[in-house]
Each structure stands twice: as structure tokens, then as C-alpha cells.
């Protein structure tokens, strides 16, 4: 192929034709345009007038240039120019396509797959055996599965990025086992890995290696950390080139339970910096709702970091008994608690009744005995709804009768009078140490420091339930911590004080860990394997390689220490892990991870996505030639006076019309006009089905119903409108009539979104299968099946046939039948709630408090309503007087329906009439 810079020519000899251009120039220049003959009576006045200049007997230069360009474009076009022609990749023998299927490659995964497809096509053409191997699948002893290239095309869709990085040992082991000769095409994700150079060396031993790498930097988000009252978000990138800014969005559920973007923060990378961070300060309420952070626009597991309990600030209410002693801080009942909890929880103080109203996560009662009846009730109710009540013993508890005779609701166990003291001045024995936690205990696995001793405690009464309620014991088996479940909540009793008076427990790290395990507090620092020893966690929500958070399904449990210590891998996929009371996030990007760009040795060819596509220019050049010739036609006509000014103007207008922009504007203007018209009056609308006859009937039906409404009621509708679900705004129409035809196209996803929004926000759609309800909406008629198909993605509540007391039966007329052209009673509306009660003194129930979003029937109402502009019916209904009666009933149904749409369940409020009258009477 003949190359000229980036241009290649298929038929370069044709370019010699360009030599002809100067000759053509001279020829064209010499020939003036031919004259026109015109009949003109005024010629008598022209006689004797001479031309001023004689220039125009030559073609003007710009016309010559235009023609020359046209010819040149044609010559070059036929020479078959191609921009960036692809040289053949060359090479024979087997080809290994090695894919980095890590999350770092997810960002441009489709381009990668496209590139592999191109490769496979080329390999197929060249007859090369090929293997497509993903890095994460490498196992040391697996041979490379070389097969015919086209076989691999089918497996490409199964190739997906994994949310973890492959393990170095597996890859290097595989690299060492390689044998045979082959070329390699490596689709690198652009992040340096410890195993990369070893693998590259090994591959280069086998044959040529070329690498494909995106120029776009890989950006990842580190786990969010709580810091000084704000959330610190750090992002890393592999290329530290120029400045860049990314936007990180916090996602979570809003108070209505709908997933939303709660906040965004911008992180700016300075030039040359690989890491950058930003602080996101959120109100506690909002912060506790955040479930994950995501780099906007990025699409990989690395760009998502899940928030877990560590981001949550628990609200903990601490209530201590009134202190009678002088304020010695270290002796205060709550001092150690506050020290332990303050860094990562919001502490609140106050009266119990106020605290319960604040609905904290945990209430701690430190040696509090006397609870007023109302306080105890409120506390019990709060606990039963899921609160965690933590109580500490103390002198008062020991001295009180609380839980002495019978078990108190707010105590996990009964207590023996007095408690005991060991190892004190007045007692025998040594202070007791703690016994190792049993497997059932939530503290299982926590190491017990030797210096934790207990010198005083309150004693639990032996009870049948005592063993199961004990979660920590002393070395001699006496319960130290007991717990009782109370519906959704629990009551935990530490049998020692919260200060260091009775034991050294509050002084130890174990105390903090125990509080953590009880979900009283949440961890602040990174997890240590030791923190989670003995716990089992299950994957609740998994993160895919593309960064989507999906439900994990059922997966085997993971030991806590693995969760804390290991990097994510195939057996430990990143995601949100749920334990007994806590949730821990394992993110694809660890706290200490950094991304570095891969440095490829010089003998490896690196190709990027920026590789220019092969672009044949023949069509474009020939079009240019044609366009130039067309302009030439006009210019010549204009020059010789054959083209009148009006014709030029007309041509320009036609050209302008051909341009799309003004038309779109006009369309928009039209839409706006339509919307204004629709909103200034109540406007009935019907859905365009594409069947001309049905649409016409629907339009006439809406027309007829509008007329009837106008005459009989205070609703004065405007001209009815045909609505195209794809393009038109629905929200301005309170009522949509949707006749079902079998050939109707299924609306697009966007249209369904619009429809669902329409239904949720109070719109009503009347579906009409027009088949007299023979379908029964379960099987049967084609229209019924079509309706099922169409309505499947719609957000339709449970339905029931119109009950006799439905508000539709009395919004304007009292009706029991809803005929159209057919008389079928099978008309369905939103089902009433199951617990609807018969209203007192009224023949109907207290029904649901909104407009039914759909009415479904098959009575072909539109044709019954249809009338021309003079109000004459267009279609026959029934026969004779009975038929007219039926039409009247159809109209009445229509009136009731539109009234229902516009007034809602106003008529249902009649149930309140007796009460209102009663009140008026007083």
C-alpha cells in the first residue's frame, strides 16, 4: 500500500490524474457561461446600452477553484485513501491473549473485550491457534488451552473483571511452568504488581510480547476513615501526571428507604501526587445512613468503598446514680465508660425519660436501681424495640432488693442479697481472674489479660436459665456478665462496677473490646485479627468487579481473623460481612494499598486505546466532490442569471429545513404549547397504539366524554390529546385511556419509567382490552395476553374486581355496572386493604385513601363514548332503547371515573358525615 503520512492509498496510480488539474483550470477558464435568451418587451429601451466591463466572459476564479476541488476530491476519492491503515500484526504460531481481569481493568472493560474480539478475528484469518487466559484463573500446573481462535469468541462474555488482585505465588508458579513457543498479547490493567516482571520475563522467553494498556489512569478509593468528626476519603491513582479532580459520592438510604446520593465531595490530585484525600463532614444522622462511597463516573470495585459500623457513631446514653461523694473523677461511676466510648460514639446525658425519647442505640445504667414506674415502662418498651440496655452493678444494686424475689424485666438474672467480696482485707481468698470465654459467648476468642481481677461482684441466683444467660464468668464459674434477650433488644448486666472499685476490668483493653463485641462501641482503628478471633461472618452484600453492590446470596461463613488479616481473594470476596450484631466491610482496596504504573521494558510494544481506527476516506471524499458539484450547479445558475432570487431563497429555505436543529426547536416549541394547553384545562388523553382505527375511536371517545363532562358536571375539559408514551410528557394529564391492541409495540424502558412515575404520583390509566373481558386477565384473549405483557414492568398494586362499595360507584352517579360497548362486570381496580372495616351506619367500608392507579376492563368504553363534534354518537351500542340506556351508563361510568381521578376518595369521606353532624349538633 502506498503511504503518505498517515494516509494509505489503495489505488495510488489514480493520483496521477491530479496532474490534469492545471489543464482543466485553463480549459474551464476560457469558456464563459452560455447566454440565456429572454423574451422582454422592454428591449426597446435597452437598445444602445453597452456593457461596462468585459470581465465576465471568463469563469470567475472562485467557481474555477470550486470545480477544481470537486475534480481533485473525486480523483483522490477513487484512489481509495485510508487514514491510519492497519498494518498486519504479523506473526505466526500460537497466540496467547493474557487478560488482567482485575478491578483496575473494569473501567474500560468493553473496549478490552472489543480489542480481544478484533484479535480473535485477526487470528482466525491468520489461522493461528489462540488461548484467552485471565490472570486470576492461573493455576500452576494448568497447560495453556490453545484452540481455534473462533472458539474463544463465545467465551468472551463470560470474562468479567474480578474485585480482587491475583495472588503473586499462583502467577509466578504458573509463569515458571510455561513451555513451548507462542506470542503473547497482554491486556494489562496498568497497575504494577509484584509478579508482573517475572511473568513478563517468562513470556518473553516463549515469544514476542505486545502489551495493550489504557492511557487513562486507574483511580481507586481507600476505605473511608472517621477522623476528627469528619470522614476522611482518600483516593489513589497509578499515574501521577497532571492535576486531576474526582468527585466521590456517598450513597445511602434516605428516610423513606430509597437509595439516594447523600453527599458528594471533590478530591483533587496535585500534579505528581499519587494520593489525595478530602474530608467529608456530615451531620450524624446523615452519616449513619451512608452505606458506600463511590467515585462518580468510575466503574470498578476499586472505586467503591463500603461503609460499615466504623463509620457509624452510636448514640449512647449514660445514666449514673446520683453521686453522694465528693467529686473524685477517677472514682466516678462513669469515668472509664466515658473514656472508652467517647472517641467513637456520641454520648448523651440526662433524665431517663428524656433519653428514651432521643432513641439512642445504647443506654448504660451505671449502678442505677430506682426507676420510676413510667421510666421503667419507657425503658422496657425501648429495649423491646431493639435497644441495648447495659447495666453495671455497684453498691446500690447490691444493697437493693431489685430482682431479689422475682426476676425484674430489666435485669437478666435474679440477684442474691449482698453480693460477695473476695481477696479484700476482710475476706479470704485471692481476687478472681476471668475464665476463658466459651464458644457461645460473644466474647469468644478475646485474649484475657492476666492483670484483670475481680474483687467484688453481685451474685446471680442459680436459675435454670442462668447458664444460657451467662456470657462471661470468673475462674470459679460465677457469672460476671449476663445477658437476656428481650424481644428485639437485650439487657446486659456487668456484675461489677463501671469504675475500678470492684475490679480492674474497666482499666484493661479487654473492657473496650468487650464493649465493641457487644456493639456498644465501634472500632476506630483498623481491624486486628485478634479482635475478631472466634467470630464467624457471612457475606451479606458483595461488590462485583464493576463496583456494583449486589446481594451475596448464601455463602459459607468466614472466620473473623481471616476477615481482618487477609487481602480479598476468590474465597474472601470483598463486600459487607455481617456478624451477630455488627457489620464489617472488606474493601477491594486496602488501607495500605498504593497503585504504581507498570514500567514496560523497551522491547515490548505497548499499544493503547488511542490507537487510531482504520478510517476509509473514499466515501467522504466522493461526497465532498458531489457537494462541490452541487454548489457549482447553483453557482453557475446564479452567475448566468438563470436562478431567480426567489428560487435561491426557496433553495436556502429548503436547505435550512433540512438542517435538524431548527426543526427540533420548532418541535420543542410545539411541545411547550401543547403542555401549556394541557395544563390550562383538564385534558383527557389516550395512548397512541399505532392502529389508526383504534386511535381514532379513542380520540372520538375522549371527545365524547369531554362533551358529556362539560354538559353535566363542573369539569370543563379541553380538547382531548393523543399521547405518545415515548416522547410526550405524561404528568400534565390526570387520566390516560389505553386501549390494548395486539400489534402495539412495547414501550421503551424510559417510557416505563415515566409511566411508573405517573402511576405513583396519582395518575390513572384506564386499560381497555376491548374484548368484553373474555380474557379474565389470566389467560385467553390475545389482547389480554398483550395487556399482561405491557403491564408487567408497571408498578401496579394488587387488584380486585370493583367491589360494590368502591368509591367509583358513587363519585357522581350511583352505579353498579360499568358498561361500555360491552357489558362485562369484570372491571378491576386496586384492591382494598384487607383490614378495611365496615363504616358505622354506612353501607360501605372505610376504604383506601387514594385514587386507584389503574382501572382494567374490556368493555371498549371509548367507542361507546365516541361522538362527533355535534355530539352525535359514532358507533352503535346495543339495540334500541336498551342500547341507548347502555350508552348512557357508559357515559355515567366515564363521568364517575374522571370525577374519581379529580376528587380522589372525596366521596368516601361520607363515612365521617355522622361524626361531623354529631359534632355540629353539639
Amino acid at each position, binding site marked *: 500500500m502506498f503511504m503518505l503520512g498517515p494516509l494509505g492509498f489503495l489505488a495510488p496510480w489514480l493520483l496521477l490524474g491530479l496532474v490534469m488539474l492545471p489543464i482543466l483550470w485553463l480549459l474551464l477558464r476560457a469558456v464563459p457561461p452560455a447566454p440565456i435568451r429572454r423574451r*422582454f418587451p422592454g428591449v426597446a429601451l435597452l437598445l444602445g446600452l453597452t456593457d461596462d466591463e468585459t470581465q465576465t466572459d471568463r469563469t470567475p476564479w472562485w467557481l474555477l477553484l470550486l470545480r477544481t476541488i470537486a475534480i481533485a476530491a473525486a480523483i483522490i476519492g477513487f484512489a481509495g485513501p485510508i487514514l491510519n491503515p492497519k498494518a498486519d500484526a504479523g506473526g505466526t504460531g500460537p497466540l496467547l491473549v493474557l487478560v488482567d481481569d482485575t478491578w483496575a481493568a473494569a473501567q474500560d472493560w468493553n473496549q478490552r473485550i472489543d480489542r480481544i474480539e478484533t484479535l480473535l478475528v485477526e487470528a482466525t484469518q491468520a489461522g493461528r491457534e489462540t488461548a484467552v487466559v485471565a490472570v486470576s484463573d492461573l493455576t500452576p500446573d494448568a497447560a495453556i488451552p490453545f484452540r481455534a481462535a473462533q472458539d474463544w469468541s463465545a467465551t468472551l462474555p463470560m470474562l468479567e473483571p474480578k474485585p480482587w488482585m491475583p495472588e503473586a505465588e499462583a502467577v509466578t508458579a504458573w509463569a515458571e511452568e510455561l513451555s513451548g513457543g507462542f506470542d503473547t498479547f497482554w491486556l494489562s490493567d496498568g497497575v504494577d504488581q509484584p509478579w508482573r516482571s517475572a511473568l513478563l520475563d517468562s513470556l518473553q522467553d516463549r515469544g514476542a510480547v505486545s502489551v495493550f494498556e489504557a492511557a487513562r489512569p486507574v483511580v481507586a478509593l481507600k476505605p473511608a476513615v472517621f477522623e476528627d468528626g469528619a470522614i476522611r476519603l482518600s483516593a489513589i491513582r497509578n499515574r501521577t501526571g497532571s492535576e486531576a479532580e474526582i468527585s466521590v459520592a456517598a450513597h445511602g438510604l434516605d428516610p423513606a428507604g430509597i437509595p439516594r446520593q447523600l453527599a458528594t465531595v471533590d478530591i483533587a490530585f496535585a500534579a505528581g501526587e499519587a494520593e489525595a484525600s478530602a474530608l467529608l463532614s456530615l451531620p450524624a444522622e446523615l452519616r449513619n445512613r451512608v452505606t458506600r462511597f463511590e467515585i462518580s463516573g468510575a466503574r470498578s470495585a476499586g472505586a467503591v468503598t463500603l461503609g460499615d459500623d466504623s463509620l457509624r457513631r452510636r448514640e449512647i446514653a449514660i445514666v449514673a446514680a446520683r453521686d453522694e461523694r465528693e467529686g473524685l473523677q477517677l472514682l466516678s461511676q462513669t469515668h472509664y465508660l466515658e473514656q472508652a466510648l467517647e472517641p467513637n460514639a456520641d454520648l448523651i446525658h440526662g433524665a431517663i425519660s428524656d433519653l428514651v425519647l432521643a432513641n439512642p442505640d445504647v443506654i448504660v445504667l451505671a449502678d442505677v436501681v430506682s426507676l420510676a414506674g413510667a421510666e421503667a415502662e419507657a425503658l422496657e418498651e425501648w429495649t423491646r424495640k431493639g435497644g441495648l440496655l447495659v447495666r453495671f452493678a455497684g453498691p446500690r444494686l447490691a444493697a437493693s432488693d431489685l430482682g431479689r424475689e422475682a426476676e425484674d424485666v430489666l435485669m437478666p438474672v435474679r440477684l442474691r442479697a449482698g453480693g460477695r467480696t473476695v481477696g479484700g482485707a476482710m475476706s479470704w481468698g485471692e481476687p478472681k481472674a476471668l475464665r476463658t470465654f466459651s464458644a457461645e459467648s460473644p466474647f469468644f476468642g478475646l485474649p484475657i489479660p492476666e492483670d484483670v481481677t475481680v474483687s467484688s461482684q453481685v451474685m446471680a441466683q442459680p436459675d435454670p436459665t442462668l447458664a444460657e444467660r451467662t456470657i462471661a464468668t470468673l475462674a470459679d464459674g460465677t457469672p460476671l456478665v449476663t445477658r437476656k434477650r428481650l424481644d428485639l433488644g437485650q439487657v446486659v448486666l456487668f456484675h461489677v462496677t463501671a469504675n475500678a472499685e470492684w475490679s480492674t476490668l474497666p482499666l484493661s483493653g479487654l473492657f473496650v473490646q468487650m464493649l465493641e463485641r457487644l456493639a456498644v462501641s465501634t472500632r476506630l482503628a483498623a481491624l486486628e485479627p485478634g479482635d475478631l478471633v472466634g467470630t464467624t461472618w457471612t457475606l451479606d452484600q458483595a461488590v462485583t468487579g464493576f463496583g456494583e453492590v449486589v446481594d451475596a446470596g448464601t455463602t459459607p461463613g468466614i472466620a473473623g481473623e481471616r476477615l481482618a488479616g487477609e487481602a480479598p481473594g476468590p474465597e474472601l470476596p470483598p463486600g459487607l460481612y455481617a456478624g451477630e450484631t455488627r457489620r464489617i466491610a472488606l474493601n477491594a482496596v486496602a488501607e495500605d494499598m498504593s497503585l504504581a504504573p507498570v514500567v514496560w521494558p523497551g522491547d515490548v510494544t505497548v499499544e493503547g486505546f488511542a490507537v487510531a481506527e482504520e478510517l476509509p476516506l473514499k466515501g467522504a471524499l466522493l461526497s465532498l466532490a458531489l457537494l462541490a458539484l452541487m454548489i457549482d450547479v447553483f453557482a453557475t445558475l446564479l452567475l448566468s*442569471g438563470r436562478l431567480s432570487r426567489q428560487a435561491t431563497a426557496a433553495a436556502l429555505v429548503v436547505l435550512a429545513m433540512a438542517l435538524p436543529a431548527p426543526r427540533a426547536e420548532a418541535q420543542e416549541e410545539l411541545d411547550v404549547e401543547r403542555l401549556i394547553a394541557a395544563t390550562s384545562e383538564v385534558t383527557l388523553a389516550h395512548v397512541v397504539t399505532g392502529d389508526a382505527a383504534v386511535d381514532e375511536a379513542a380520540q372520538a371517545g375522549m371527545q365524547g366524554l369531554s362533551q358529556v363532562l362539560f354538559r353535566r358536571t363542573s369539569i370543563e375539559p379541553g380538547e382531548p390529546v393523543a399521547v405518545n408514551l415515548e416522547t410526550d410528557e405524561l404528568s400534565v394529564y390526570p387520566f390516560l385511556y389505553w386501549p390494548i391492541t395486539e400489534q402495539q409495540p412495547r414501550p421503551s424502558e424510559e417510557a416505563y419509567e415515566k409511566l411508573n412515575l405517573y402511576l405513583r404520583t396519582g395518575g390513572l390509566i384506564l386499560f381497555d382490552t376491548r374484548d368484553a373481558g373474555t380474557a379474565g386477565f389470566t389467560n385467553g384473549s390475545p389482547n389480554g395476553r398483550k395487556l399482561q405483557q405491557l403491564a408487567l414492568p408497571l408498578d401496579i398494586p394488587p387488584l380486585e374486581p370493583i367491589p360494590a362499595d368502591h368509591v367509583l360507584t358513587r363519585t357522581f352517579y350511583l352505579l353498579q355496572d360499568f358498561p361500555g360497548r360491552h357489558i362485562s362486570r369484570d372491571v378491576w381496580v386496586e384492591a382494598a386493604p384487607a383490614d378495611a372495616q365496615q363504616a358505622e351506619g354506612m353501607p360501605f367500608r372505610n376504604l383506601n385513601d387514594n385514587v386507584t392507579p389503574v382501572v382494567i376492563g374490556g368493555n371498549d368504553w371509548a367507542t361507546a363514548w365516541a361522538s362527533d363534534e355535534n355530539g352525535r354518537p359514532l358507533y352503535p351500542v346495543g339495540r334500541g332503547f336498551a342500547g341507548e340506556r347502555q350508552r348512557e351508563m357508559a357515559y355515567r361510568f366515564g363521568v364517575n371515573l374522571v370525577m374519581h381521578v379529580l376528587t380522589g376518595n372525596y366521596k368516601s369521606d361520607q363515612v365521617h358525615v355522622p361524626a361531623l353532624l354529631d359534632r355540629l349538633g353539639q
Partner: protein
Amino acid sequence: MIETARLSDPDAPARLRRDAETLAGPLPPLLAAAEHLASSVMPGQHGRRRVGQGDEFWQYRPSHAGDEARAIDWRRSARSDDALFVREKEWQAAQSVSLWLDMGRSMDFASTRNLPTKADEARRLSLALCVLLVRGGERVGLTNMGLPPRAGQLQLMRLTDALARGEDEADYAAPDLRGAPSRSRAVFVSDFLGDMEPVTMALAAAADRGIDGVLLQILDPQEEAFPFDGRTIFESVGGTMRHETLKAGDLRDRYLDRLAERKDQLSTLARRTGWQYDLHRTGTPAPGALLWLYTALERAH
């Protein structure tokens, strides 16, 4: 060619008559100003200020012997004591109007399909005028075809026929006043684009014979706009005259100057000989031109 084809159509006279009647319909009958023949200088508008045949009341006079009994105005007589009165009318005499219509080939031109040819427009206007005049009891003649001025519906038929069939082979026709009685009125309808010499001569002769009248110039919009560009050969409609130019656009200004000069020449000539001049463009509403003709002929002298 289209026009000649239309004229050779047997229905053409009938259609032309119908069109003209439609156009003349809305106007009241024209009472042409009666001009004194001998005692010329008489002020006033209508009639001859003396008793005679007519429609307008002139005076009551006492009856004398010889008056017919039916001539007596009984209402007036009853109001007097004894005398009988006769009602006399003002004498109204019919006026002669001679039309000359340019039937040269140059008139057979319309710049676009939507416009009538100048000849068509001229015929329609002229015949409408004839209808009005005949209705008003005037005598109308057509000098081209040698039709002397006569009154009555039959004359109207003849006029119609003559107008529909008349055609001249020359590119530009010369005005003609043969058969026009002295001291009558004349109407010249033409585009006046040809040689001005015959027109000047004809007007001088008319002035000599005491004939005054109206010049109506009919032009096509294209002739006033000259919207041409590029290399062009202009030919007269008959093909006898041609002019070639390389850049028609450059000629526009000079052509328009010449046309303005021609119009000016016409109006000066008319003013000098006591005639009146107006321009009518094809495509503009014809009733306007007709109204002008009507008032111009009715105007007092």
C-alpha cells in the same frame, strides 16, 4: 402562444364579456360629462343646462296649449290655484368615447404564469370601461377595428368580439384615431414601450381636433424591476428586436432610468395636450385602474 390559443377558442368572447361584466358590476353607471360642442365654456357638471330629453328634473312651467294631458304634473298643479304645471327635464346628450387598444405583440407578455398578459389586462379593463359607458348611455367605439362610436347593447357585443379577436403583427403598434368624432373623448391603452413618435403625433392630432382623453400605460412587474443577471440575450416578443449583454445586472439602473424617463415623457405629453396619464401594473387590482378611468372620463372640463 397560450394566449392566442385561448383567443381562438370559440368561447373566448363570451368569457371575456363575462369577466368584464363582473368587473364593471360594482360601479354606478357612468354619466359622462357632457361637453359643450359649440358654446364650449360652460361651468357645471351635468347636462346642458337647458330643457330637453333626460332623466333629471329641470323645472316646472305653466302648461300651455298643445301640451299633452299626460305631461301635466298633477301634484304640482293641485297646489296652485288654477294653473296647470308641466314638469320639464334637463337635456342630456350622449358622449362619444373612442378606445384605442395596443394590440402589438409586445402586449402579449406576462413575466410569470400567475400574471395575466398585458394584452389580457388591457382588454379586460377596456371592455369594463365600455360596459360602464354603454350602461351610462354613452357611445363607445374601437378605433383599431374601425368600429365607430355607437350606443347600446349590440355595440357592446361588437366591441367584445372585436377586442377578443383583434391582433397586430407588429411588435409595437401606433395609436390610431381614425373614426373618432371631433370633440369626443378618447382612451389609449398601451405599454408605450415602443417608439414615442407616433404617440406624440396622435396626441397632437387629437388636440387639434378637440379630442381629449386618457393615456393608460400597462406594465408587467418584471418590466419595472428588471431582475436579470448574467449573460443574456433580450428579444422582443415578436422577435424583431434583440439586445445582447454580458452582465445584465449592470444594465438595470440605466434601463430603469430610461423607463422613468419614458413615463415622465408620457405624463408631460398628456399634461400638455389636456389628457390624463396613469400607470397600471398587471397583477395589481384592476378595479383601481377602472375607477381611475371612470373618474378621469367623468372629470369636468
